[in-house]
């Protein structure tokens, strides 16, 4: 009988510590990434074009760094965000692709699930486990807070959220700040449930299609899931970049107190100098 469970299944217990199938996959993936890093580290050489896995990693870094830069429009910022975002993308992508591994859902141990004896698979994508997606989301949003505080300073960063009601936009400012603070927490949830939902749905889809028609029919769905896995990793990384970028850009109001970051009156918008109209209260 087909077994579909939202959470990861426990396949063994070591000294009272339950080992789930996603933990097993995470461990395997850990060593896979370790191996990739090892190979890359040995082959990397600025004097020679790298070949094989190292070359692939170089290409990945090159493309991804350009991608980050295209969002931040700032090389330094891109270099700062890159390790966080690239790690997220890389790990999430690999864990998403585990979903497509042969043997997923078919190799495992027999166990009791909801009172029925069913096959509990060894392989389950980490992304189809809320624990993992929650960890990644928490990591991403924590990085956003830390990076924001590092760039803008403790006071500068938190003054975005806690706006005194006697300052310029008054009560509205305080209210918006509070909303922003709540949204920082909701971002964690949306991050984790987005990834989990997509990959878990993919797994269920593949399982159901494989159960209904084991031959040929799952093929297009495998391609679809390959695509979904890539896109979800990219979405996760892109959103992290965007949030990082937002967190490290101070509000226009604070720019008067700190040194100005950009002269908006000289900015061109649609080819017209000064086309950006300063918002209320920004022009003295």
């Amino acid at each position: 009988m087909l077994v579909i469970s939202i959470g990861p299944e426990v396949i063994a217990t070591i000294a009272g510590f339950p080992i789930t199938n996603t933990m097993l996959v995470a461990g395997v993936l850990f060593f896979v990434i370790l191996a990739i890093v090892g190979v890359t580290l040995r082959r990397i050489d600025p004097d020679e074009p790298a070949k094989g896995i190292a070359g692939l990693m170089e290409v990945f870094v090159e493309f991804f760094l350009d991608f980050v830069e295209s969002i931040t429009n700032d090389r330094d910022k891109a270099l700062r965000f890159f390790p966080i975002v690239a790690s997220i993308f890389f790990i999430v992508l690999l864990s998403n692709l585990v979903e497509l591994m042969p043997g997923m859902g078919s190799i495992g141990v027999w166990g009791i699930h909801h009172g029925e004896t069913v096959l509990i698979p060894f392989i389950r994508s980490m992304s189809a486990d809320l624990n993992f997606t929650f960890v990644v989301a928490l990591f991403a949003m924590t990085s956003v807070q830390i990076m924001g505080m590092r760039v803008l300073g403790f006071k500068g960063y938190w003054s975005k959220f806690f706006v005194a009601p006697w300052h310029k936009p008054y009560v509205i400012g305080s209210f918006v700040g509070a909303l922003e603070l709540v949204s920082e927490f909701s971002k964690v949830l949306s991050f984790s449930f987005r990834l989990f939902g997509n990959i878990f749905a993919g797994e269920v889809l593949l399982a159901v299609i494989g159960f209904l028609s084991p031959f040929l029919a799952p093929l297009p769905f495998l391609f679809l899931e390959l695509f979904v896995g890539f896109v979800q990793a990219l979405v996760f990384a892109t959103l992290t970049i965007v949030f990082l970028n937002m967190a490290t850009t101070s509000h226009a109001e604070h720019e008067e107190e700190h040194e100005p970051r950009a002269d908006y009156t000289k900015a061109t918008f649609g080819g017209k100098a000064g086309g950006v109209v300063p918002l209320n209260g920004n022009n003295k």
Partner: protein
Amino acid sequence: MNEMLTKLGINWQSFIAQLVNFVVLFLILRYFAWKPITAALEQRRQKIAKGIDNAKRADEQLESIEIERKEAITEARKEANKIIEDAKQKASVLKEEKMRMAKVEIEKQVDEAKEMIIGERDATYSALKNDLANLITKATGKIVKDLDDAAHKKLIDEAVKDLETA
């Protein structure tokens, strides 16, 4: 709340395991993958930029050398032409000078020769005149014996003078 989390498959053991796993992976990737790769790429980028820059500079140098070479050649050609022109001019001047000197020499010689000829002629002429006078004196003396020598001579001289003026 707790029941909901359990239903969603969240439990603290799993969470801790994934957290530790992820953070360690992040640190490994950060220090052993992204750092050396970006460093290598940056180094390579700089090297390539330097190489391109060098190539550009070499090209520029080559171009300037080529221009210099061309300039030198045209300069040399101009110099050579000038030298040849000068030589030609000097030669023609020299030629003219020589010609002029030769002409002068020739003229001088011709004049001298003329003078000599004239002198010779005059001498011959006067000698001839004397001889002629003597001859005539003697001849007429033989014919006209009665005329004394002085009167005779005077007569002849007059005759000769008439002859000369005629």
